[in-house]
């Protein structure tokens, strides 16, 4: 019980730290973007901030998620296993930490938009599931990359990234030449907003779970050296 509380406090501190990083990244991007904004009066400016800052928070959060996912595997995986955590539970802890960060970012965006109460903020709230899907996908990518780097080192990561780049390029060229259509995008315009969001969340969640399973399988017999 006592060790459970200590672990909760430890990961809670980590969560807070990474939320602060996400906020800081979002603030920097927002300030850079908003230097061109005309101040038409305090209330209007505040309204603009409340309406637009969450988008930067999502973007900042995505960047931080990507970075911490890799560093969790590279740094914390070997340390936690050397401190007698099982490999499976360590992967699970990392996944839970990333999910809690995503939830924290989304919750903060939701609160800011709720406080704003404007039409634009209402639109933002509707698009939160899409943001969730995007953040889950980013987290999944970082889990894949972090796992590959931990298991096969930087060479493995470079090969993985090259395969993704080449594959994506070839798919793009193929689609651009009209030889292959992945899907007819027009259905997105007719899809109800809530279903659209649900599709994104489902896809993001599927990617995240796949990445988690991949990580657990690849690292199940990982040797800890330092």
């Amino acid at each position: 019980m006592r060790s459970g509380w200590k672990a909760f406090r430890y990961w809670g501190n980590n969560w807070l730290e990474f939320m602060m990083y996400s906020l800081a990244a979002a603030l920097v991007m927002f300030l850079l973007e908003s230097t061109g904004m005309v101040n038409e009066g305090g209330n209007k400016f505040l309204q603009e901030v409340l309406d637009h800052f969450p988008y930067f928070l999502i973007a900042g959060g995505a960047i931080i998620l990507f970075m911490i996912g890799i560093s969790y595997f590279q740094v914390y995986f070997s340390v936690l296993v050397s401190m007698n955590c099982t490999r499976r539970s360590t992967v699970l802890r990392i996944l839970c930490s990333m999910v809690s960060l995503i939830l924290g970012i989304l919750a903060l965006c939701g609160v800011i938009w709720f406080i704003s109460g404007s039409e634009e903020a209402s639109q933002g709230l509707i698009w939160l599931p899409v943001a969730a899907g995007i953040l889950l996908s980013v987290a999944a990518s970082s889990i894949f990359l972090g796992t590959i780097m931990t298991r096969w080192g930087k060479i493995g990561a470079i090969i993985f990234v090259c395969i993704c780049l080449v594959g994506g390029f070839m798919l793009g060229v193929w689609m651009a030449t009209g030889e292959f259509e992945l899907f007819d995008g027009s259905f997105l315009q007719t899809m109800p907003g809530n279903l659209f969001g649900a599709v994104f969340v489902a896809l993001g969640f599927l990617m995240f779970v796949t990445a988690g399973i991949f990580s657990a399988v690849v690292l199940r017999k990982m040797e800890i050296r330092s």
Partner: protein
Amino acid sequence: MSILTGKGITKVYGGNEVLHGIDLELESGKIYGLIGRNGAGKTTLLSILTSHNSATAGTVTFDGEPVWENPKVLEHLCFARELNQMLGVSTTGALKVKEYLRIASVYLPHWNQELADRLIKEFGLEQKKRLNKLSKGMLSMVTIIVALASKAEFTFLDEPVAGLDVVARERFYQLLMEEYTQTGRTFVISTHIIEEAADVFEEVIMVDKGTVLLKENTQDLLDRAYHISGHKDEVEKACSFLETHHEETLGRSKGVTVLLEPGQKLPEGCDISIQKLNLQKVFVALCGEGE
């Protein structure tokens, strides 16, 4: 009394078998010395015994329960491994000492923070420094703090005194004996500085080329190890029924190391010199062959 048992432990890396079917039993309440040459397989063996590495074949159990990925069993074990000075920025080395010890305090269930704080102060460790910025000696101190403060029933230390000066090494042995006397914990210590550590080892495990050459009470081993020297013919006559190791010949003089088996006695009536050996010399005699 708890027992950590390894049966048929084999490890293969890419076609190269580094551990060959090792059988080992470690009882609680003892201090074991694990000695062997570089590349003998000591660290690999320790990491397999503590689930840091998987065996290609064989089993490791603790009181009959498998050790591999078993949190119930892992609670009783702690492997404080040698932290490499070549830790990169993107790996464990990116952590600060404070963070590393904090993780230890969270996940080692019997962690004693008071002892850890006392040792940090005694060693003068800078907690805000990153692990990859520490000297070899300071890294050894971090290893020692984790090992002693973990209060684990079975604690494994891999080269804990590497990089420590002689004063620090003496202090480590004192701390080890204090902890052992107070708690009766089991320690398994691998080291290259054999003669210094020999006094604390109740049992010695000698590993050579992936096999366990011997596992024996240290004093019993030393009681049956002798160096016999003299004229070549006299030595050969005296040792005709004994297994000899590490033969050294210089002109017409010869020196050999013998380990008496049960029932064997030292040769008498020969013109030879017989000397007792220390643990280091026994080790060199047994593991230094073929150079």
